[in-house]
């Protein structure tokens, strides 16, 4: 039956993560953006919340929580409300762990999942994007060719979060002429042919370490392919990353909206708060509508994932809508602050730079 209520558990999780994002993540946002570094103690605190370890089955040292895309979306929105770079860093291990949980063979799960159930933050990553203007998840240029019992990978990837910090990277590649989308490969950092280049320098997401990664005749054994010959459901994985992106875009947009709203009530012009002027008030009203619309579209797609569907269309809709709306909302937040919005003392320019990425980037987070 239709309901817009969070479950008791979801409410608890949301409140916990929201408080953490507000009290711990947001205060660290500017420094992370300027310095490119996130305090390890902050990352450690997020790890203790069980954001990654929670979904690891108990037999591998996790908490065995039921994984839910809706819950994942709620967490992603709240963390991104704090700061997008920090949120993606904290959740990056999911990019490697979650596909393993869902599609990995018993051997792969036994071999690798315990790595994400340690007491300290365990970096993890996936390489999906490629450095070309017409990148398309539906048409990966990175290829995996069968060689003997194993595979040879060739191609270039970019925006690989925590690529240099992770013990292995989940690399997505088109596999021969196989139907059903791309395959996923467990590529150890030390694998010959895998090169992780210097850290990327980007317009936004400056607190997040991302890397360009190349694969040149990178030879892998059969055990490297997630799910073995059956592979994984790439469409569903992409759907999950799109829902995560939409949720994070909602978080960034909400951060900008709430900041601008508070500013508009404080800031006076012509002797009155600018919020009492229709030109400002209506802009904020439209921002409020858009933030809610983004969230509802995200939840709708997430609910489909939770029902076992791949949510190709819905994830795509939610992500594209959110990418566009986040840009409009954050831009309007800068506009609300006027000249002050352009100054780095206020966070709205940071929100705008981070929001710009959503329409461009794919596969940086999952639910």
């Amino acid at each position, binding site marked *: 039956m239709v309901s817009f209520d969070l479950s008791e558990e979801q409410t608890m999780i949301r409140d916990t993560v929201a408080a953490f994002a507000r009290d711990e993540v947001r205060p660290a946002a500017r420094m992370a953006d300027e310095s490119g570094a996130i305090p390890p103690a902050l990352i450690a605190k997020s790890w203790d919340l069980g954001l990654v370890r929670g979904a690891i089955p108990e037999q591998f040292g996790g908490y065995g929580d039921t994984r839910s895309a809706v819950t994942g979306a709620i967490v992603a929105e709240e963390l991104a409300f704090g700061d997008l770079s920090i949120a993606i860093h904290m959740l990056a291990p999911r990019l490697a762990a979650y596909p393993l949980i869902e599609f990995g063979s018993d051997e792969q799960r036994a071999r690798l999942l315990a790595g994400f159930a340690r007491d300290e933050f365990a970096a993890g990553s996936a390489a999906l994007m490629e450095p070309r203007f017409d990148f398309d998840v539906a048409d990966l240029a990175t290829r995996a060719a069968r060689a003997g019992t194993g595979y040879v990978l060739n191609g270039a990837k970019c925006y690989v979060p925590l690529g240099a910090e992770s013990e292995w990277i989940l690399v997505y590649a088109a596999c021969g002429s196989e139907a059903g989308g791309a395959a996923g490969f467990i590529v150890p950092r030390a694998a010959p042919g895998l090169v992780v280049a210097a850290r990327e320098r980007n317009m936004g997401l400056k607190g997040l370490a991302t890397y360009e990664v190349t694969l040149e005749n990178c030879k892998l054994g059969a055990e490297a392919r997630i799910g073995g010959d059956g592979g994984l459901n790439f469409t569903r994985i992409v759907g999950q990353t799109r829902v995560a992106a939409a949720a994070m875009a909602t978080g960034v947009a909400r951060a900008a909206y709430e900041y601008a709203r508070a500013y508009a009530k404080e800031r006076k012009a012509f002797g009155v708060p600018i919020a*009492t002027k229709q030109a400002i008030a209506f802009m904020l009203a439209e921002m409020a509508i858009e933030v809610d*619309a983004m969230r509802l579209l995200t939840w709708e797609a997430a609910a489909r994932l939770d*029902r076992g569907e791949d949510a190709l269309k819905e994830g795509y809709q939610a992500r594209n809508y959110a990418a566009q709306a986040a840009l409009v909302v954050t831009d309007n937040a800068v506009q609300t602050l006027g000249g002050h919005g352009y100054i780095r003392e206020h966070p709205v320019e940071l929100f705008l730079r981070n929001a710009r990425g959503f329409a461009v980037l794919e596969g940086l987070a999952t639910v």
Partner: protein
Amino acid sequence: MIDFEFEPPVAGQLKMYHAVAKQMMRPISREYDEREHEKPWQFYEAMWAAGQTLGPGTEPAKSSDAAKAATGTAKLRNLYTCLSTEELCWGDAGLFLSIPNPGLGGAAVAAAGTPEQKERFLKRFREGKPKWGAMAITEPGCGSDSAAVTTTATRDGDHWVINGTKIFCTAGQMSAEQSEGFVVVWATVDRSAGRAGIKPFVVEHHTPGMTVARVEHKLGIRASDTAMLIFDNCRVPADCLLGSAEVKPTGGFKDVMATFDATRPIVAAMAIGVGRAALDFVRDFLRDHQVPIRYGLSPRRLTAVERDFMEMEVQLKAARLLTWRAAWMLDVGLRNSLEASMAKAKAGKAVTLITQKAVEILGPLGYSRKLLVEKWMRDAKINDIFEGTQQINLMIIARRIFDYSSKELN
């Protein structure tokens, strides 16, 4: 738990509404757009007989409560009203508005009337011939600022004497002259008291002194009559005043504003029905002409038509989700003024753009009266105007998010 699924019985009911829209409304849609002010009596009779009383803000009094409980519709009454409204407006929004039912007049009675008044005024909708109810609030000199009404009601013995002119009264003609219905008229009993002095009066059909001075010629929703009513020493019995005659700062007018919390999601659902009609048509048309809509691709690889179509589709969906949420909140007993205005503002704007885009995508065919697409564009526009214009809804949203009174932000 977050859920966007309906139980199977609800889906079945919606199929029934869809069949009504497709088989009874669509075939006469163009005819009653062209023949404005003509009445599709056969359609009225059929809808009346079928017990369709799902107009804006009405209580679905005809279907048995047991049946509703069985399907869960008793629980989510407002939400399901939005669903049926979307289906019927997919058929034709003008015809939907002309369906005999208590309408906004009935909603006012339900919101502000005593139990005795509710029985007296609403009973008629469960028996006899087709009837309509209407609400008259807008005046030539006041629209969105509805607190500025100048129509007066003066006490004279056991009667109130009403004088003034009302415009934009939906189903005004059907309620006042063409059936045994009624019009709820908002008039001030004390002009010095401002909005506190504004009270609702039920004026029965054919009451001397009430005349339909004009039926408007409109851009769209032409099957629905929009009347100008003139009240010239119109005498109504004292017990036709809904609620209390006492002039106090709360109650009365505030009750009316509260009915908007329930009616705005329904108007949003109307908009969505019209928007979906256009969207469905464009989707089928593109498919029949081998124009693919490819989901999942990088947006940089999409054609302009694909982008436009996807934008229309997701805008409609966003409006629908906001609408469902607003209606659902009311159903579970949560205050929803903010969310109702969000839904209304989003739906009104989205559907205006969607239907305009549909005409554009279909080119010369879209502009032609051979198809219904141009009509849907004309019909859609009203949803961004009535029950609070886009701007009025943004104002309400802004007041809520800033926690401002109407004095602080206006």
